[in-house]
């Protein structure tokens, strides 16, 4: 009597339907879409342009120390030149690129992925509270699909936002490295994909049992800035204190940011790039597996 014979057993069917549900909330709401695009741009403008670290060295307001006897004009020019070279060297040594804006823009990509992933955990708490989750659980849709749809949604959003951020960065004068070709961007998106899968799996796994929005918010607030600052997204890790170094080494944000900088800004160090991708892949596989296992365990109470 029930006509279930024609129904597809393809798990992708339900997975895509659920993902599309989330995406529609985003792209059908122009206001939300606008905000989610404008937010990273504001960050880029504020951090990348306002915190113009390069300007510290080229500021004309810093008085050149007076020396007795006074320098001749050619000597002054020479000193100025030396000072300028010195500052470029410092920038180059510290950030491996001559302007902080380029360095920062790539960091913002990681930042965007991190924040998008965090919010993916929220939506499962809402689904639980509003009863959609139990409704979905009463249908034959694969339990894993319910979680993976959130992951996929967050990853797709991240990639689009990353593309927008990079597009603006290029428009505002990002200086690309010697090895840069358009194909490197595919590598960037691959890195964003991997980190997105891993991070959103973590946040969804945290949220899967939670029934309170507040708890989830607290977790997010606890993790977001530490994850961001204990990485190379905004500042090179080798200049950070020793006790912080191990933390930056296990922070996946460090690896995605490094991979992206290699691909866009630096002369590519194949060895380091391979390590980055290996780490990111392992991170994505491990945490999405944990997410799926937890969803099997906890979604049916």
């Amino acid at each position, binding site marked *: 009597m029930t006509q279930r014979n024609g*129904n597809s057993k393809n798990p992708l069917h339900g997975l895509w339907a659920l993902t599309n549900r989330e995406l529609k909330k985003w792209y059908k709401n122009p206001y939300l879409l606008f905000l989610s695009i404008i937010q990273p741009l504001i960050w880029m403008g504020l951090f990348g342009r306002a915190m113009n670290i390069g300007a510290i060295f080229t500021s004309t307001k810093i008085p050149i120390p007076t020396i007795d006897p006074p320098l001749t004009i050619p000597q002054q020019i020479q000193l100025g030149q030396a000072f300028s070279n010195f500052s470029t060297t410092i920038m180059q040594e510290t950030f491996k690129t001559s302007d902080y804006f380029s360095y920062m823009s790539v960091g913002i990509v990681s930042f965007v992925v991190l924040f998008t992933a965090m919010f993916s955990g929220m939506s499962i708490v809402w689904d639980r509270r509003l009863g959609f989750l139990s409704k979905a659980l009463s249908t034959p849709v694969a339990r894993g699909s319910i979680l993976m749809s959130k992951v996929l949604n967050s990853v797709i959003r991240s990639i689009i936002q990353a593309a927008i951020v990079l597009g603006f960065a290029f428009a505002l004068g990002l200086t690309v490295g010697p090895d840069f070709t358009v194909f490197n961007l595919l590598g960037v998106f691959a890195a964003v994909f991997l980190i997105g899968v891993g991070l959103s799996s973590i946040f969804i796994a945290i949220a899967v049992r939670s029934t309170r929005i507040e708890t989830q918010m607290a977790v997010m607030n606890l993790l977001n800035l530490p994850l961001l600052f204990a990485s190379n997204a905004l500042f090179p890790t080798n200049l950070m204190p020793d006790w912080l170094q191990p933390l930056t080494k296990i922070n996946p944000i460090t690896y995605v940011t490094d991979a992206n900088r290699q691909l866009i800004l630096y002369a590519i160090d194949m060895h380091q790039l391979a390590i980055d991708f290996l780490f990111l892949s392992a991170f994505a596989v491990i945490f999405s597996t944990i997410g799926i296992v937890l969803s099997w365990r906890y979604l049916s109470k």
Partner: protein
Amino acid sequence: MNGDAVVVEGLTRVFNKNLVAVDHVNFSVKEGEIFGFLGPNGAGKTTTINMLITVLKPTEGKATVCGFDILKHSSEVRNCIGVVPQEYTADEDLTGLENIILCADLYGIPREISKKRAEELLELVELTKFKDKQVQTYSGGMRRRLELACGLINRPHVFFLDEPTLGLDVQTRAATWNYIKLLKKEYGMTIFMTTHYLEEADMLCDRIAIIDYGKIVTMGTPNELKEKLGGDIMTLSIKDGNIDLSSVIEKVPRVKEVKKQDGTYRIKVEDGEETAPTILDAIRAEGHSVTRLSLTKPTLDEVYLEYTGKSLREEEESKEAVFRQRVTMRRARGGAH
């Protein structure tokens, strides 16, 4: 399948090791009937439904739905049931049609079939005009109808309705009942519903179980349950108040008890409508005439109170449940929030 759509044996669910929400419940729902599950808030109605729709695992006992074990063959069970939860689960940001298609996708129904069915169901619940409007613009009644349509997308064999009219106004409730009856007529399925509106159960259900503190306290057709209380009450007055006709009335079949008070008779009878004329005939045969007569049938309210007691419940519900109910009520009352 031996003719029973749902069979429940010793079903038990314990929360947090000590809160027994459902306590060794036994019942069965016959193929094609509307079975009502009645009880005060927190009696275990929703917990029972959640176990039957495979969202919650029982602590003990077993149950089959459409002949499939809810634990061992949960995915077959899910395929043959439709569920309308207490909450409004339709996505506010999507349109009515998109919501139905989403439900269809969760069942893996191919798009060409689901599109046709969605149109058909929207027609049935009279939402065709609004199908491309976002659900946040819908009224409570429209949302409820949309939920009904979503729950039917897979042509379920057993249809579970959890408090289908919670928070709706009288007109919308009546309309929702009509839709439920219509859907049942159209698709001929078995319906399992919970409610705490008694007139709703009385009107819609073929059989009713009253559950309280996790146990079924009584079960039967609405009429059986009312009969159990001892039948209808008939009061009548006779022109000549001084003559006692009690003995005459008592002789009429199906009269159970007669009391005379100040010239009026209080008579407990079975099948009041049919017995009343017989009583009148008997009185007339004695040469007397009746001046006043009234017949009161016990309502389900009385049955309900008889079994669940009159004291108010100090329920302790989870914050989550309270929140959901609040959202449901708010959405039921008026479209956008």
